[in-house]
């Protein structure tokens, strides 16, 4: 009983602290200059009509590399915990019905197509590598549940795709260091805005991020499905 009272008092204190510190921040008011800078000069400087993408990949590209690294470490750690060298004997699973099997096989390429559309057009329309990669991974989830059952697929394929796309990201960034003197410089021609082949290195990096995120999350699901 005493423990519950103490924890209740602590929660009230924390809530009051959060409330009084957040009350001072004017949400939605234009306080920062950098937002107007991005909105005014983003399209001209990066060539990407989706300003969010130009911030994520170009202005703050190094942060995105860190974000992708965090996801990579999480995926590696999970597969290190769940790894088991000897495949155990599993009980025979029930085969999925014909309607489920056919439906999954019909939907899987469409979901892959939609996900890759989102990360290829990341510099033009809302969405990008993270969203498209998550949609691709949900397609893999569907086909793992509906078609391949709880067997899963070889984890090395996911790891190879993930590592290669991470390498593409780093190499494209390092080429910027080579050409112009700083990491992730947009050294390719910007092209005409609103066209598919525009915005220099942004589509290349976002496609690499899409492959990386998709293979990471699909690999996490595959590890969880296969283990135990």
């Amino acid at each position, binding site marked *: 009983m005493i423990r519950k009272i103490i924890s209740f008092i602590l929660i009230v204190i924390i809530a009051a602290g959060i409330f009084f510190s957040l009350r001072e921040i004017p949400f939605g008011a234009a306080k920062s200059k950098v937002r107007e800078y991005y909105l005014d000069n983003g399209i001209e400087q990066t060539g990407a009509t989706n300003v969010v993408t130009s911030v994520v990949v170009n202005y703050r590209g190094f942060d995105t590399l860190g974000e992708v690294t965090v996801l990579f470490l999480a995926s590696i750690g999970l597969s290190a915990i769940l790894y088991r060298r000897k495949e155990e004997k599993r009980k025979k699973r029930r085969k999925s019905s014909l309607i489920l099997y056919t439906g999954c096989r019909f939907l899987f390429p469409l979901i892959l197509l939609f996900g890759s559309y989102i990360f290829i057009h990341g510099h033009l329309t809302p969405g990008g590598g*993270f*969203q498209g990669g*998550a949609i691709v991974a949900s397609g893999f*989830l569907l086909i793992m549940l509906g078609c391949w059952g709880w067997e899963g697929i070889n984890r090395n394929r996911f790891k190879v795709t993930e590592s290669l796309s991470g390498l593409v990201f780093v190499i494209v960034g390092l080429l910027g260091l080579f050409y112009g003197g700083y990491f992730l410089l947009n050294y390719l021609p910007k092209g005409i805005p609103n066209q598919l082949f525009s915005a220099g290195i942004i589509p290349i990096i976002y496609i690499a991020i899409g492959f990386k995120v998709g293979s990471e999350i699909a690999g*996490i699901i595959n590890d*969880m499905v296969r283990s135990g």
Partner: protein
Amino acid sequence: MIILEIILVFVMLVGAVFAGIFKDLLNAVIAAGFVSFIAAILFYFLHAPDVAMAEASIGAALTVAIFVIAIKKTKRFEEDDKKDN
């Protein structure tokens, strides 16, 4: 439109509270996924389609699926610990 947003926020709060209350972990995971789904709709209303897509695909779909797989491999019902009182 603002009334719809207020209703959605309250529905989301109810879902979040139920996600904490449920003893059946499967129901709790579905309630958490419901909260993510409403959050995605609210992000779309707030003119942030990028965040809405990420929230809908990761929060409402993949997280729920990963939790459901984990519950299938472990235990479904939370036990009452009476020692706490």
